[in-house]
């Protein structure tokens, strides 16, 4: 169903969106944020601030999730500790601190302790390159609201995430138990599978921005958020970010019915809490990255940005817009959890490998061609559209070709699906023999019953000495499938 929607979306929105693209690429790939007036102590201060911001956000989001899901399920959710139950998570954290920390006998002690530390530590690192706001003045120093920025920022996030996966796989292995091992491997395979599609979806952004530095990407979005030209990347990214963070509907690693707790089955107390913390901070990281890459980062929404010559579009205000955008993604996470059931593992992997990866690759190639046409690599002739817009012939052609391919693909896929559904939907015969299989079967709506006596070989007789009718003979097609009453448990 979702595939259908995606393809539909690709068909309809495409020409309009690409015609919109007029955003100029950045002049250079190096970060546009200026850190030259930032002494080391200020960098440390900002790191601590971001760290606290993340911890407080985690405390809040767990409460938020439980309250929202509570509303969705028509119950209040936690509302006892503190105003509106806000301190519930703090209470839970303190409780887990006071629980016994169990290390199973068979566990590999060193790695068993190391795994949760890796997960928790790596979760925080990625946030150091996320721009939270514009340039501000702190203690007399002009500095951007961002811990740091490097030319390879986004790649750094992906690299850190891939190191973070070690926490999961090592936790699974070192527990010395079957469920954690299986859960850990499953989680790892799931994360690496969706990491590819995630990485590929971001390539379209780099094509537009010409940079991998987060501050430069945000700066390049001042006229147009990349969600418009790279809408398909956005869809893929949102799907993969749920898969990456092991959240419902993709939380197969902790499928309670099959693997109990998955990789953290054996963990308790604070070591378990570290995995919990890591999961939620990772949710913030992927949401923050989505905000930065697709929603203009800390820039104000379009109409607010225009007020009073960009009064709200910089400095500390950025923090507000950024937080708002990021939390909208977190609401989506919670919403998904509140409404969708878990997918099956093979369905999940099939969707990742057979749909997301090839279609994202195709999308990246298409975007490369569109960009190439816009930059004049494919010819320079331009035409007037409706007497107003001037647009390159190459752009028009490429967009047309991409649209036609997407349309044709969707059409063929739809046809195949219809044919498959038709093939699967075999109409039941008009007439059934209710006793053909040996036991009475009620007719489907519109079916006629075959009269018991009309078929030779099928008749009901009463066995001597028994009050129950016993079936003899067999159905018209069966080569003598005599029915024997099973007595296996005698």
């Amino acid at each position, binding site marked *: 169903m979702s595939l259908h929607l995606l393809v539909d979306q690709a068909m309809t929105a495409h020409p309009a969106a690409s015609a919109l693209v007029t955003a100029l690429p950045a002049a*250079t*790939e*190096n970060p546009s944020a200026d850190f030259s007036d930032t002494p080391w102590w200020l960098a440390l201060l900002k790191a601590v601030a971001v760290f606290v911001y993340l911890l407080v956000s985690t405390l809040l989001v767990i409460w938020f999730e439980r309250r929202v899901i509570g509303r969705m399920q028509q119950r209040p959710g936690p509302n006892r500790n503190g105003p509106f139950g806000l301190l519930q998570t703090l209470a839970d954290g303190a409780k887990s601190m006071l629980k016994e920390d169990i290390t199973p006998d068979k566990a*590999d002690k*060193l*790695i068993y302790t190391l795994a949760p530390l890796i997960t928790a530590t790596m979760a925080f690192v990625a946030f150091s390159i996320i721009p939270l706001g514009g340039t501000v003045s702190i203690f007399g120093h002009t500095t951007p609201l961002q811990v740091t920025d*490097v*030319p*390879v920022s986004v*790649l*750094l996030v*992906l*690299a850190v995430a*891939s*190191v973070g*996966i*070690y926490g999961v*796989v*090592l936790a699974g*292995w*070192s527990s010395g138990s079957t469920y954690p*091992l299986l859960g850990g*491997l499953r989680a*790892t395979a799931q994360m*690496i599978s969706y990491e590819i599609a995630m990485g590929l979806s971001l390539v379209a952004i780099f094509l537009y921005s010409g*940079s*991998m530095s987060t501050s430069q990407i945000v700066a390049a979005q001042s006229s147009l958020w990349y969600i418009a030209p790279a809408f398909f990347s956005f869809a893929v990214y949102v799907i993969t970010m749920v898969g990456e963070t092991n959240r419902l509907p993709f939380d197969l690693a902790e499928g309670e019915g099959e693997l109990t707790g998955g990789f953290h089955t054996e963990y308790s107390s604070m070591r378990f809490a570290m995995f919990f913390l890591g999961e939620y901070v990772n949710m913030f990281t992927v949401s923050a990255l989505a905000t930065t890459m697709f929603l203009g980062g800390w820039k104000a929404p379009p109409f607010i940005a225009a007020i009073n010559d960009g009064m709200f579009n910089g400095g500390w205000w950025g923090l507000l817009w950024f937080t708002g955008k990021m939390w909208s993604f977190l609401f989506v996470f919670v919403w998904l959890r509140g409404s969708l059931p878990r997918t099956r593992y093979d369905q999940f992997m099939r969707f990742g490998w057979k749909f997301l990866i090839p279609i994202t690759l195709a999308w990246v190639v298409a975007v490369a061609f569109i960009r190439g046409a816009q930059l004049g690599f494919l010819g320079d002739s331009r035409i007037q559209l409706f007497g107003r817009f001037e647009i390159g012939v190459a752009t028009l052609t490429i967009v047309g070709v991409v649209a036609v391919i997407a349309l044709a693909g969707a059409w063929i896929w739809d046809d195949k699906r219809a044919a498959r559904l038709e093939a699967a939907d075999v109409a039941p015969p008009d007439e059934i023999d209710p006793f053909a*299989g*040996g*036991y009475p079967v009620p007719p489907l709506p519109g079916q006629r019953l075959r009269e018991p006596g009309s078929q030779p070989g099928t008749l009901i007789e009463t066995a001597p000495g028994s009050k129950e009718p016993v079936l003899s003979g067999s159905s018209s097609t069966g080569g003598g499938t005599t*029915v024997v009453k*099973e007595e*296996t*448990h*005698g």
Partner: protein
Amino acid sequence: MTSTAEAVGFWLLAPLAVVASLGLLFARKAVHAAMSIALVMIIIGIFYIMQKADFLGVVQVFVYTGAVMMLFLFVLMLVGVDSSDSIVETIKGQRWASLVLVVGLAGVLLSTIGSAVFDEQKVQAGLDKLVATNTETGNITGMAELIFGPYVWIFEVTSALLITAALGAMVLAHRERLSPKVTQAQWAARRIKDNKNVAGLPAPGVYARHNAVDTPALLPDGSPSDLSVSRVLVARDQVATTDGIRDVERHLEREIEEGSAR
């Protein structure tokens, strides 16, 4: 010349890298060895970044730590680390060939490191050029201009290498299905058709005093149902007996009988 920050970083990390490399050789457990080499990979990535090769450094962590070591871990965990290696030479002359390659690699490394140590001017010139490229065109763009310029053939040949890798993985690890996979729906249909266990197999016994999966359910006549316990548990000889539970049941029945007789 090397800056202070770089020197401090080097002298902090290099001993760690050496210790981790020794860990690869001497660790008792294979996963520990794999972890130490992952650490070495990360440290090498940091070294690259310290040498102003940002992209290369991050990619080192991304590809080697993220992907290659993950493959190692999977193999180590799954195949079983205890299986002893066969020391029979499967390919003739393998040892001699590998010895020649090792000597060749050592030669290349020594000559490169030697030129870096003794020809400081050349190294400094290279580093200056790198810094200039990083600020003017940018590290990644400079890299891309090399990949799609002088080294475009190597880049294209890499794709052939990737195909080979896929082929190798399929040949080594993939077993093709001989019969089509039976889906859940087909199983259900077959169950109905065969008229055998139509409602599914009986569930194991659920008792208040004992965990259930290893205890067979009791049929109406009080006998245990073999169908209700997993055959894995049967093979492992872990099935609990139901005698005790049946004794209790009989006792209860007797009491009820006595009660009704009174």
